[in-house]
């Protein structure tokens, strides 16, 4: 794609800007900022990736993954601000997911141990894990509030915190997993996944593109399940004290 063609694609930014202005949606400024940010961020990432790919250094790969985990943690922690130590729980979850998935991919030689494979796949894994974390934390903090009486009832009958929080925890884990499972049911029928589309547009064999996409889909299933479950089991003990009493949590209404 030439720069002229890329410049022409800005028409797709102009359309929502004009619609926002015409209908007084008040989204013009945000759309403009989002466009500028995406241009700067993606171009910067393009140059950084070129540098990392050419250097072939594992240190740079690790730094890139660390950067992804840092950004994902920063984004997701706002939704779980009421849970004590949520930043470390998120970091631990993302690191575990990254090590688990890369160990399987590289250990079984499913993908080669090069930056071209490790970084994009890590991006998808950590990104998906971040979205799952946000979905889980959103639901979990809401469930804790709505099922507070049931939780205290189980404690009052002699239940442990794990038993008392079981239902809100399971509901939250299931609710956060549903979008991943449902979207996989219709994949290829309703929409072609972004990575596969990108490969096909770039001229790759569609079957090869499908194979990679399937790899990513299976990977994301594991990511989704492990993220929700791990984050859930790391989070619930902080809701209780050593006397098995439910602690008050402060929910930020704006979140």
């Amino acid at each position, binding site marked *: 794609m030439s720069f002229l063609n890329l410049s022409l694609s800005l028409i797709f930014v102009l359309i929502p800007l004009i619609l926002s202005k015409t209908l007084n949606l008040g989204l013009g400024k945000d759309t403009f900022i989002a466009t500028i940010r995406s241009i700067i961020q993606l171009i910067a990432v393009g140059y950084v990736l070129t540098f990392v790919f050419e250097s072939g250094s594992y240190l740079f790969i690790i730094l890139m993954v660390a950067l992804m985990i840092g950004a994902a943690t920063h984004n997701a922690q706002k939704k779980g601000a009421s849970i004590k130590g949520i930043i470390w729980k998120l970091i631990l979850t993302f690191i575990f997911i990254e090590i688990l998935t890369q160990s399987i991919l590289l250990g079984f030689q499913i993908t080669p141990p090069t930056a071209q494979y490790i970084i994009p796949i890590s991006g998808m894994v950590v990104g998906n894990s971040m979205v799952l974390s946000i979905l889980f934390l959103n639901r979990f903090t809401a469930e804790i509030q709505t099922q507070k*009486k*049931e939780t*205290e*009832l*189980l*404690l*009052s*009958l*002699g*239940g*442990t915190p794990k*038993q008392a929080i079981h*239902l809100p925890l399971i509901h939250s884990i299931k609710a956060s997993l549903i979008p991943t499972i449902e979207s996989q049911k219709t994949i290829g029928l309703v929409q072609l996944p972004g990575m596969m589309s990108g490969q096909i547009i770039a001229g790759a064999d569609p079957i090869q593109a499908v194979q990679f996409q399937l790899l990513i889909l299976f990977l994301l299933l594991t990511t989704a399940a492990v993220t929700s479950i791990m984050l859930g089991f790391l989070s619930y003990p902080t809701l209780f004290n050593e*006397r*098995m*009493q*439910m602690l008050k949590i402060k929910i930020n209404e704006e979140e």
Partner: protein
Amino acid sequence: MQLANDLTDKTAIELNHISYSDDNLDIIKDISGVLPEGKITTFVGPSGAGKTTIFRLMNGLISPTKGELFLFGENIQTIEPTTLRRTVGIALQDATMLRGSVYKNLAMPKTLQNQGLEKEEAEHLLTQVGMDASFLNRDVSDLSGGQLQKISIARTLVNRPKVLLLDEITSSLDRVSTSDIEHLIQHINQEFAVTIAWITHNLEQALHIGDYTWVMMNGELIESGSTDLLKNPSNPRVQKFMKGGWQ
């Protein structure tokens, strides 16, 4: 501060200068008193007096900000929380239920101990609280407030507590059901020597069911002793209460 009740009785629960604050709000203010073992102690006083908070402290759902609580002479902070809560059972006014059948709710105390509740035992519990055994498979969402209160009491009894805390459990019940529950609680108290603490807004009930009474107001225990104190209260605020002037 008065040390309540007849100290010649053995003590089931003792409160020693208990205070409890939440969000810098003093809910319980330096209360000392005892629940005599094997007796029925009624708790009376206006809404917001701190009666339910006292029960939550006794069941270990919350801990006092200051002071100590003793269960049969043992500081409750040293008792394993699940053991404490099975020994000191609580049935709350709102009769919270878990989604599902009556049986599921009745069996919950056993389920929490990885045990099962025999169907016959569940049916017996239902009949004890004045409900037909056929209710066992009914969904709790189909039941009335009064029926839920009865199930809540039955569920609390599954753990066979030594101390039973009842928070306005007859407030949603009709006269006949209230009488049934009163007889049941008196039976449990006399037959199994279970210590009962009972919050009620019904003074008539407090007078005829209670051996002892605590009168609470604004987080303080303003008078306590034999239930007869309600007939001839010495405290002017209790006198006002007896004339129905709390509110």
